[in-house]
């Protein structure tokens, strides 16, 4: 018998029962990290932009008495 074919006789243990649970746990960590990154990249600049606009509008109103310049 070919020695290489004896490789098939090397026993492989059954997969651990906890494998699927660990996969989901690791995936959840990844998803949490991805959502946090997405939040920081998209939501935070958007919210900050709106906040800065509101503050600028308030300053403008304080200085000129007008909220928006009339054209």
């Amino acid at each position, binding site marked *: 018998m070919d020695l290489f074919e004896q490789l098939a006789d090397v026993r492989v243990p059954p997969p651990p029962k906890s494998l699927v649970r660990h996969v989901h746990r690791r*995936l959840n960590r990844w998803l949490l990290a991805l959502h946090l990154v997405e939040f920081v990249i998209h939501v935070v600049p958007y919210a900050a932009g709106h906040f800065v606009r509101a503050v600028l509008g308030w300053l403008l109103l304080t200085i000129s008495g007008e909220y928006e310049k009339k054209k």
Partner: protein
Amino acid sequence: MDGFAGKLDEQSDEALAALAAREGSDGAAFTTLVGRFRERTWRICYRLLGNESDAHDAAQDVFVALFLQRAKFRGESKYSTWVHAVAVRTCLMQRRSRGRRLRREGTPTGADLDQQPTRRDAPAPGAKLDLVQMLDVLDEEDRALVLLKYAEGYEYDELAAIFELSVSACKMRVSRAREKIQERYGGSGGSGG
């Protein structure tokens, strides 16, 4: 819910992969795929890494990679081939990083032993060689090819799809790997084709 799960079980791998690509999190379709490929992925990881702890770690990495890349599956090959290719790449990466780590720590790896002047090719008569250890003289990809071919019984066309090689290139690499083992271990390195 049972009815929905039952319907998913009847779907082909490719149809489930398409459903999983539309899921925002690891939903029912992806969970069904994990269940289907759990055993096969585990076997590949165990064969290539040689111990349960590393195989467990690698199998988790494989499923995370499958999830993160789920939208990249275009259906040009069978989904099972794609899963096996991801599993092989993950294990090869893990073996390479393990090799680098061992080299940094000064522990000799299979490749280092290969370059040492002491000959391992003359076992005492009757000594039983560890087949899997013998494969350490091969480079990582050739080792994986030989293991999947002989230990897991993959056909050359499946190997070609997994390793993105031609069938003839796969045959040649397996044949060269056999020759290398035979050169190194003499008569005990296998006979026949």
